[in-house]
């Protein structure tokens, strides 16, 4: 099964790596399944061995032996530091302000970092019915730093979300502080083309592009007129050793890569 290792990262590998760079040692992270989980495992395996992972299923301080196939995978329970009911997760961990980093993705995101995971089209008569919020809304409200990880396209990076499931920096013209939201709101949007930061007004601006990508390509994939930060940086990409780690150790079955 062993194939020659390509030194070119896939879009997923880029995003997992770039997201991992946002995590600091000892951060308490509310982890979702898929790329966020991979990013956390990569951070733990490299620069943030003390990363503390909490899952909405109730596993606290989990160290799964296998890549979890669902947010409630049994491997998250075995050998975790604590397993608690979901009431404790949402009340005593998230609402209490203990979560430093949250991860979200979605079907649509707008320039304020509002996210839609509910419907495409009209709420009462949707074109597509999506899974809904799950814990996303409260993560967006309470996490001190929120990382949004999504592939970019005009279809997903939209002028206005059809439905705001998870509020960002500005909803219906109101800033999150006015709305009384305790969390810090979105810190960055990590995409397959580059990274968007949020400026002082709460608007997403292009701040980093991957080496092979031009700012024009990024703007072309965005549904609103995307502004560019004054100093555009080059986004860090995984080197061969990181790619080997991701492909051979962290997701050998390529569930998410």
């Amino acid at each position, binding site marked *: 099964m062993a194939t020659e290792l390509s030194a070119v990262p896939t879009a997923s590998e880029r995003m997992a790596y770039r997201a991992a760079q946002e995590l600091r040692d000892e951060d308490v992270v509310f982890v979702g*399944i898929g790329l966020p989980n991979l990013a956390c495992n990569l951070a733990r395996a490299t620069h943030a061995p003390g990363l503390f992972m909490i899952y909405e299923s109730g596993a606290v301080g989990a160290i799964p032996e296998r890549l979890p196939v669902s*947010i409630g995978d*049994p491997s998250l329970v075995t050998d975790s530091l604590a397993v608690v*009911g979901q009431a404790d997760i*949402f009340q005593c961990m998230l609402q209490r302000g203990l979560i430093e980093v949250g991860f979200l993705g979605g079907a649509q995101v707008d320039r304020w970092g509002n996210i839609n995971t509910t419907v495409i089209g009209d709420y009462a*008569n949707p074109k597509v019915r999506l899974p809904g*919020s*799950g814990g996303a809304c409260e993560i967006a409200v309470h996490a001190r730093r929120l990382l949004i990880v999504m592939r970019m396209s005009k279809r997903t990076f939209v002028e206005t979300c059809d439905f705001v499931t998870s509020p960002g920096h500005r909803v219906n013209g109101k800033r999150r502080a006015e709305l009384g939201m305790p969390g810090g709101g979105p810190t960055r949007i990590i995409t397959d083309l580059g990274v968007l930061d949020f400026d002082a007004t709460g608007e997403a601006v292009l701040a980093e592009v991957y080496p092979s990508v031009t700012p024009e390509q990024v703007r072309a994939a965005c549904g609103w007129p995307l502004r560019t930060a004054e100093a555009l940086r080059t986004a860090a990409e995984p080197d061969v050793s990181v790619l080997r780690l991701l492909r051979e150790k962290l997701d050998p079955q390529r569930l998410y890569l």
Partner: protein
Amino acid sequence: MNKLCSMKEAIAASVTDGCSLVIDGFTHLICFAAGHEIIRQGRRNLTAIRLTPDLVYDQLIEAGAVRKLVFSWAGNPGVGSLHALRRRSEASSPERLELEEYSHFGLLSRLLAGSAGLPFWPLNNYAGGDIARVNPSIKTVTCPFTGQALAAVPALRPDVAIIHCQRADAEGNAQVWGLLGSQKEVAFAAKKVVVVAEEIVSTERIRKDPNRTLVPGIIVSHVVHEPWGCHPSFVQGFHDRDNDFYVKWEDISRQPETYRAWLEEFVYGVKDRQDYLARLETGLLDKLRAKARVCEGVDYGY
């Protein structure tokens, strides 16, 4: 009081047309056996409640048992969509399911209120977003000390809760470990509780480790012994998730024809759970059976 009975008896005695129902479990301990028996008994117009309606809820929807879904995340976890739900809730559907939608924290809060005997529950959530805009059951309450506006949701008291556990005695004292989800809240919120267990043990054995008891028998009306009742979901310490089934389900459920064929074969076409298990691929249960990771006991002496 000995409350042991068959799944058939428990469902017949507790789930009626038009009632509200929770088959709980968060990826862990989801009692598919109970859902299938409800389908076989032909129940209709149910209000199906759960944070994470998954395959068994979708099967209830496909079978026409559900009128309304109260939920916060509906999908095939880690795989894809619930296709019966989508077919019944998108603009193109002729016969639309009624949806009442929260986030996890919001629906859990409704159950917390129900379990605690309060008419509402406060939570710091929903400011600005659209969830509260489209759901009139999410209101505002003002803190009498700080003046802060918080979200409030009303108590939810389901007619019936079905709680799967690792072990219970004949009175319904149920012990659970691993993920606890919202099972305690659901049980205390419900008007009637059916406990389903992998193992029925003596009351003496329950009493050996009282901190493990999640649901006390005093709130339980029926107890069913149904090993492997959660397949394809998992039961910590008993068996793993049948992930291949979840992946295959995407194809089975995408087309109404294959979906109905599956229901015919595995739900309508079997008389009970034993019969269902007998139809699974040979060797599958052995493959899924948990590899032991037994912890030490603790000392309750004095």
